[in-house]
């Protein structure tokens, strides 16, 4: 499981207030674009063969991640050539970790997307029962997912640990935070901001 100490790693200096070039970070020994955009263990949403990847570091209890999610999905769908990689960055404690592990334990990419969308549609703070209920409503089996996670805990914990290490390397102060192209955008992004960021990533 993710310890509080690991959660701390991401804190560094709090939220980085400015968008800064990814390449700068890389030059200093941060994760490579491959590691950020193409984690083989995290299914890509949107168009998996798209030319631009949006990475979002998020938490299932973070209100603004959830508020912005429908708009993000709309932009991804409308554009048609955007890959979306959702990276679990649980910052709100054990329920967030619980939610992330269940979703990551989904047996297929389709189930993963269903589970993720079901939890992103919830309201605010969650208890474990609410996580289970939301998954049930989406036609998924929370108990089965929990068992699947237990069998696969090593792989799933490693995914979350990788996400957190990257968040730490990027000095992300919280969620949501986006990596689009070579830039990092902390905080909620609306449609316009997302489109601009995508356009910029294509130009580069």
């Amino acid at each position, binding site marked *: 499981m993710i310890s509080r100490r690991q959660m701390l790693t991401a804190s560094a200096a709090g939220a980085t207030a400015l968008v800064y070039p990814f390449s700068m970070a890389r030059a200093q020994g*941060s994760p490579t674009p491959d590691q950020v955009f193409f984690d083989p263990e995290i299914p890509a949403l949107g168009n998996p063969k798209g030319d631009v990847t949006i990475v979002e570091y998020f938490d299932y209890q973070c209100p603004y991640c959830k508020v912005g999610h429908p708009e993000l999905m709309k932009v991804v769908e409308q554009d048609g050539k955007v890959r979306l990689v959702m990276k679990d960055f649980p910052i709100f404690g054990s329920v967030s970790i619980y939610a992330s592990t269940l979703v990551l334990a989904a047996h297929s990419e389709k189930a993963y997307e269903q589970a993720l969308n079901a939890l992103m549609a919830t309201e605010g703070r969650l208890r474990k029962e609410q996580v289970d209920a939301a998954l049930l409503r989406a036609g998924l089996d929370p108990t089965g997912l929990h068992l699947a996670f237990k069998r696969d805990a090593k792989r799933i914990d490693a995914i979350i640990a990788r996400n957190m290490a990257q968040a730490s390397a990027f000095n992300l102060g919280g969620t949501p935070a986006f990596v689009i192209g070579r830039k990092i955008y902390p*905080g909620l992004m609306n449609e316009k901001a997302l489109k601009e960021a995508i356009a910029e990533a294509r130009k580069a």
Partner: protein
Amino acid sequence: MMRLFLLSLLFLSFFAAPLQASPLPADSAFQLTVSRNEDGSLRFDWSITNGYYLYREHISIKAADGRELPIETPAGERKDDPTFGPTEVYYGAATATTRATSDGPLELTYQGCQENGICYIPQIRLIDPVALAVSNPSEQVGSAGRAPSSGSGLPRAAAPEASYGSTPEIASTAAPAAGASTFNLASDDSLIQSIRSRGGTLLVVASFLFFGLLIAFTPCVLPLYPILAGVLVRGGGQLKPGRGFTLSSIYVLSFATAFALLGAVAGWSGQNLQMLLQSPVTTGAVALIFVVLALAMFGLFELQLPASWTNWIAQSTGALSISKRTVAVLGFSSALIIGPCVTAPLAGALLYIAQTGDMALGATALFALGIGKGIPLIALGTMGGSILPRAGAWMESVKRVFGLAFLATAIWMASPLLPAGLDLVFWSALLVGAGTWGLSSENATAHQRIPTRAFGTMALVYGTLLLIGAASGATDPLRPLAALASRSAPAVEKRELEFADVTSAPELQQFLQASKAAEPTLVYFTADWCITCRTIERSVLIDNQVRRGLDGFHLIKADLSDMDGDKIELMQQLKIAGPPTMVFFDRVAREPAGSRLVGNVTVEGLLQSAGFAGAPQK
């Protein structure tokens, strides 16, 4: 607030403008201060930037051993908008109190969001329950970020240790304003400002009076005791408490005034007057004055100011008698002796004057500081009369004792100017002289003779040892035989802490850049003439605990013995009032809040600050 929030949501959905200003760093969004309530409980206050909020349920505190401690928080605002579900949050300000006590640092956790922007990761701060200092553990040790993934086939580049090194680089490329030319100092309010905001000007004066009292017995102030006592004794005759009080009060008032004036001019001009005051010339002159005072004590001549001075002072001060005037002049010049001792309150007042130009309050604070230092002196002067014996033959002996004390002060002041080891010769001469006098003293009565001679013998023996020590190359008067001892027992190796020298701000920047992400840094401001620094070097820096605590630190020394423009620039950039001052930088070249040490440094204080800056814990 809720309506405002909904309004802003609405607004944002109509205009596809950027949603929010870039999120602030957590410490700017939620500014934490720690204080102690009158009932002894710890109080945490957050000042929350407009547009940000803290969660009530995410405020928690743990003891050093990991125990969860009870914490009290008032009811927050209910954020029961359907989007968020019911939670209690704080806007504008939040407080929490805990009655729990702990030996070690407490771990305070809190979490909040930027409205409609970002939710911060849990903020964890270590609170020192005694000093009430706040530190951020995640800014200290890179090893905190060791994720289990680092060994799972990922390239080394993804390991958090490696990427940690990049964070400050990113931050500095992102914010060129905070680029290479400035230092990342802790943004502590100045001492005066923070006291003033709590209790107004009166509290500033009262606090500085109290600070003065606290440092009245430090080595800086101690030379004043023999001076005052000598003056009182020299007056001859029976010293009545009233007269003792008057004289010592005049003395203290004069030096407090001089102190305030010097401080005001120093702070206002931005120059450090203590540098001038402590030039070899002035130090030598003051030492000479003490020799002259001592000779006067020995009855060689009566100390009188030049007639022209006395006349002028007599005209301007009117009815004051000669001795009162002498006392006033002595008091005024005594400020020269204690002025150079930089202590935290002095540094605070000097910086306050320099930064705000508010000479009146700065000088008042310094005056209060001077009076505070003088209160024990006044007590001594008042009660001294009844303690000191009647005038008579005894008086002569007492005068001689003070003469010796003056000579000792002269040697002590001059020793930084002398070649190492030469002061031992002077100490030896003084002790041998004192011993001879004690042994040959004739006017002592039978039962006074024994202690006198015992002391005389001891002084002779120690004086002899010092002479042997000086001849064998010893330099420390307290360990005269060290050179001989180490020759017979060479196994004991005492490694000196090695400091690299810096002389300018850009040079220090380079050092910090070079050691960034690798090791924390200690910058030690010292000077030849700084007496407190010598004490620190002799008793604190050689302490084994301190060596261990500073293990892994990049040690840098700024020697202020010879001042030039570059060093003044360096001091101004780092907001240094003078030596001794120790500034700590952590691994990302930031000064941790509450880590700076000014004035007399103790082993405990140094270890604590080193801990803040991220000394490796063993």
